[in-house]
């Protein structure tokens, strides 16, 4: 299929993605059609320590929607490109660019995207100036822009994922790029950490920590590391969920004798407003994208099922009807899909339900799925599962066909939360 010409060098191994020693990604499954494209090494990118073109290629390959290749030719955004020549060589698109170091130490990145099928430039003035530490992010943003132009959908390569690592008796809350690189630890603790929740701005994260020998909800600023207790009432405080405007959080508090839903201002203080009044467990609240509805788990009917209630208060209505045990709801960014975990016998499986109509399908082949979280473009889910005795993170497309497995050596990963788009 690929002509063996000197213009194009296919990647030596499709699965050999640049990977840190700690975080490996394995892709299984491919898209029905994969767009072949060439991403040329950016001129002078070797002057920085960040391999811009390789990151773009790896991002696009990981989506399962592209077959990226290199070229030995020295190209940049000013090169004259005859798109028909590239088309003949089997490339549907070409990316070329350059990196220039400025006097103040920052880098000026320029690039173009040619569509070889249509014979036109889809991106003609890609440009940004960044500090050295943001070069990876800049490469991810280029991949996002290429992805969007060629598929019509927004890419999530420049987003981040939060998750908890358990290593013996040490727990840490990690923040990494969506490709698993650039991992940073937000919190390291000798006690468990669960339920990380990104603020809509991506600047803060709420979570439950057991450092006080009970479940307490904290909010932490990622840039500064400053943290504060949001809820430490009698009993357990957990399951924080931000409202889409970032002003409030829904929480589970057991202060009145049983786990119920409450709403508190994100700034803290004041008396929590009680949202549910059942004699059962109500927990795992998530807001709908328009902020008007809260979906949650309740066992008021016997076993845990997913319900919804108006965020301003009112009657709860049941939403899940397949199976006797349904937990961990996640709502897609367009508000139309509900991902959750169902128990079938001894297996816990990831399911996807259309909220309008109720059609349900399974998304995984594994038996111990937990904590689904949608990517902000609504096209992918990240979740935790167990494979070969290890707790790992997986992503999947919504048709279940393309999956990536993220694993780190020697430690268990759990509780993933996909961060928002950031400007």
């Amino acid at each position, binding site marked *: 299929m690929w002509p063996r010409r000197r213009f194009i060098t296919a990647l030596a191994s499709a699965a050999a993605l640049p990977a840190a020693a700690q975080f490996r990604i394995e892709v299984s499954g491919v898209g029905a059609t994969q767009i072949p494209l060439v991403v040329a090494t950016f001129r002078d990118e070797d002057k920085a320590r960040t391999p811009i073109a390789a990151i773009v290629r790896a991002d696009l390959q990981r989506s399962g929607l592209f077959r990226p290749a290199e070229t030995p030719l020295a190209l940049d955004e000013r090169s004259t490109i005859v798109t028909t020549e590239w088309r003949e060589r089997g490339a549907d698109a070409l990316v070329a660019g350059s990196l220039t170091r400025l006097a103040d130490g920052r880098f000026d990145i320029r690039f173009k995207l040619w569509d070889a099928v249509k014979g036109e430039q889809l991106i003609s003035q890609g440009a940004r100036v960044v500090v050295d530490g943001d070069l990876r992010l800049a490469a991810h943003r280029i991949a996002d822009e290429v992805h969007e132009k060629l598929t019509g959908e927004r890419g999530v390569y420049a987003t981040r994922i939060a998750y908890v690592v358990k290593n013996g008796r040490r727990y840490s809350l990690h923040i990494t790029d969506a490709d698993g690189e650039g991992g940073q630890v937000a919190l390291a603790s000798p006690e*468990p950490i*669960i*339920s990380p929740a990104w603020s809509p701005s991506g600047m803060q994260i709420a979570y*439950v920590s*057991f450092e006080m*020998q*009970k*479940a307490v909800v904290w909010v932490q600023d990622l840039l500064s590391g400053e943290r504060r207790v949001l809820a430490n009432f*009698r*009993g*357990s405080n*957990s*399951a924080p969920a931000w409202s889409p405007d970032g002003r409030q959080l829904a929480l*589970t508090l*057991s202060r009145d*004798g*049983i*786990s119920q839903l409450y709403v508190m201002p994100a700034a803290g203080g004041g008396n929590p407003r009680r949202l549910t009044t059942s004699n059962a*467990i109500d*927990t*795992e609240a998530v807001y709908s994208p328009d902020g008007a509805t809260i979906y949650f*788990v309740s*066992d008021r009917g016997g*076993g*845990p099922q997913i319900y919804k209630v108006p965020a301003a208060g009112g009657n709860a209505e049941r939403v899940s009807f397949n199976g006797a*045990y349904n*937990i*961990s709801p996640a709502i897609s960014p367009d508000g139309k899909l509900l991902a959750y*975990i169902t*128990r079938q016998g*001894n297996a*816990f499986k990831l399911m996807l339900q259309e909220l309008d109509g109720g059609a349900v399908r399974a998304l995984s082949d594994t038996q111990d799925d*937990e*904590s689904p979280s949608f990517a902000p473009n609504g096209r992918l889910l990240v979740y935790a599962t167990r494979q070969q005795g290890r707790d790992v993170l997986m992503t999947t497309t919504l048709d279940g066909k393309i999956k990536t497995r993220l694993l780190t050596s020697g430690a268990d990963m759990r*509780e993933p939360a996909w961060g928002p788009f950031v400007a």
Partner: protein
Amino acid sequence: MNFDTRILVLSALAAAALAGCSSTPLTDTSAPVETRTPVTASGAGATQSPGATASGTPQSRVTTVDLAAQNAAAAAAAAAAVSAQRVVYFDFDSFSIKDEFKPAIDGHAKLLSSNRTKRIKIEGHTDERGGSEYNLALGQKRAEAVAKSLELLGVADQQVEAVSFGKERPAAVGHDEDAWAKNRRAELKDR
């Protein structure tokens, strides 16, 4: 006979009478006198004396019953038994307290009721199956069930705090019913 002579005669007669008493031999026919040594409580050093039982316990022994000491010993034994029984186990998806654990809860209730300064913390746990948050709530329900039982038995609300670790702090690692059963529990800890 003059006065002096009469005194002499009387004296002589008195002396003769007295001499006659002391010189008359009497036959002694009274019962033999027994020699008794007091028997100590332990019986050590006691001489075997006639009239004692064959086992050696003296007839007039009195054993002391000290109610205060008895109560203290029983309370200590009960506290030891209760201290050993600090874990209540539960069935899957359940927060009902099974009959076999009610005596342990009774024991803790007695200790707490008799000492109002004593406080305990009840930590609820679940096995590893299922999500973290639902299990946190289920563990809380288990802890609250034990707390409620104590309060019904007279323990004050301020003496008890119920919290949950959900599935985050298993007592037994393992992925089978044997391990799961050991993790579905509520632990009573002194505060």
